């Protein structure tokens, strides 16, 4: 079996004051080992809820239907204790805003170390070694020393590198990246994307890459899932989706990407 992650007919229902709302409706996709699948959609389209469902981190009261299989094992309706062993060990996640996603009160070394020790146990010394190695892998200079620094002492791009180091320290099979470059400026964004692609090649991690930015998806994903209002409107290889979108929503999304070669209508030229 080549599939790492298989999501089938996933429906997520959240209780609200106006009754239950399906925030994800009947979504299916697969991620192979070594593969990156992009999930695209605007805010509120259900991208993040899909990823939280995989991690078992949905808000309290959320109901799920369908199936999520990781390495053949069903993830839905597991106890929290069972999911804890999967989180970080088999599936990791990185988030949009690395500054607020790191605890400001602890050194980055400790925050990576505690994750390593939660899954691998062992001595602090061994964990420290793994931490330094993980930081080196994501390109943090002088990792030995920097492990003792606090999140606010790093730049935005470095913080996201630290998040990536943390997510990968236990060598998970699946990495979910939820808008990992949205809070970064464009040059840093490119560096982080390159880093993710490089690491993926080295570690053979399957990746779910969530973004609202189609240009980013084009550069990193092999397959693309387009979501709109909780529904899956398009799913196919990146090539298919970009060159021959079947759905009107995808076409509109594609058209919304500004291109430098676009001819501006004469009345909109302001320069």
């Amino acid at each position, binding site marked *: 079996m080549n599939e790492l992650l298989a999501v089938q007919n996933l429906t997520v229902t959240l209780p609200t004051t106006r009754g239950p709302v399906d925030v994800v409706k009947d979504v299916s996709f697969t991620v192979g080992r070594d593969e990156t699948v992009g999930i695209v959609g605007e805010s509120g389209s259900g991208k993040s809820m899909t990823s939280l469902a995989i991690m078992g981190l949905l808000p309290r009261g959320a109901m799920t239907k369908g199936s999520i299989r990781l390495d053949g094992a069903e993830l839905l309706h597991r106890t929290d204790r069972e999911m804890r062993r999967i989180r970080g060990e088999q599936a990791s996640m990185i988030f949009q805003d690395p500054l607020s996603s790191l*605890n400001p009160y*602890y050194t980055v070394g400790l925050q990576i170390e*505690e994750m390593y020790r939660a899954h691998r146990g062992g001595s602090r010394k061994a964990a420290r070694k793994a931490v330094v190695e993980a930081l080196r892998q994501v390109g943090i200079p002088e990792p030995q020393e920097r492990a003792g620094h606090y999140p606010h002492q790093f730049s935005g791009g470095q913080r996201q590198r630290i998040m990536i180091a943390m997510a990968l320290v236990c060598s998970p099979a699946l990495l979910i990246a939820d808008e990992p470059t949205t809070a970064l400026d464009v040059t840093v964004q490119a560096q982080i994307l390159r880093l993710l692609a490089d690491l993926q090649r080295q570690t053979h991690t399957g990746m779910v890459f969530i973004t609202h930015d189609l240009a980013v998806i084009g550069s990193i994903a092999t397959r693309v899932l387009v979501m709109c209002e909780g529904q899956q409107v398009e799913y196919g290889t990146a090539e298919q989706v970009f060159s021959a979108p079947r759905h009107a929503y995808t076409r509109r999304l594609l058209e919304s990407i500004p291109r430098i070669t676009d001819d501006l209508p004469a009345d909109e030229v302001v320069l």
Partner: protein
Amino acid sequence: MARYLAGRIAGLVLILFTVCLFTYLIFFKLSPDPALLICGKTCTPERVTEIRTVLGIDKPFLTQFWDFLSGLIAGRDYGSGANSVHCPAPCLGYSFQTSQSVWEMVVDRLPVSATVAIGAAVLWLLAGITAGLLSAVKEGTWWDRSVMNLALGGASIPNYVLALALQYVLVVKLRILPFPSSVTFTDDPVLWFQSYLMPWIVLATGYACLYARLTRANVIDTLAENFMRTARSKGLSPVLTMRRHALRPALTPVTTIFGMDFAALLGGALITETVFGLDGVGKMAADSIAKNDQPVIMAVTLLAAFFVVVGNVLVDLLYTGLDPRVRIR
């Protein structure tokens, strides 16, 4: 660090000086002639003038204020010649009522106030933080709602009402506790504890209720932080997630407020001490105000200001250890 401390100490001195100046000014302008108070029944105009000279209150305001300040730092002499009285530094003068050295009065009573404050602080921290934490974790449940309503009620009961109610129930009706008396710990530890128990409870109640609400709010805010989501996504145990990632950010602001509340209490719990007849700084303040005992009023005002200002500096220093983002240059 050294520069920071020097700056803070300079600020501290400036604030205390200002407090001195205003307190002195108020009593210089507003209080009735202390010489008349001291003079008593068999009073002659000559005697009043004499007392004024000895106290130095016949001099202009600035001279008097200067005498007070230099007495505080270097000690001073009252009167002249054979009858003069030397008041060693730090000289806060002598009570108009009892002729006791005010400094000695303060030194005598401070341990009582400190005992009241420390005992109450232990109680309110334990009760307030525990209740707040449980409420935050069980947000929205009946437990949360009842604790928070109770806390609102508790915070709105005036000290003296609670004190009288407790005394009535525990001392008069149920006879569980003796009426509070001034005993030291070494004299009779059991009676000492029984005497302080009610003051502790009374003083702690209001604070515990406020701290419960504060802790609850802080913990709920922290639980919603992104780094809590990260901690969960790392597969950490709920205990570690809570203890390491939620508690420290949530309780750090509580430390700040605790430092200031506690410092203020060292300056005397006026109502509690008075109701329970404890001879602390607070009762001394109440008595001195009732009797217009100017040197004592000056002393308790200064003392309270001193504790608050010093407490503030200490909290700031402590904060640099608690929150790595705060560093002193």
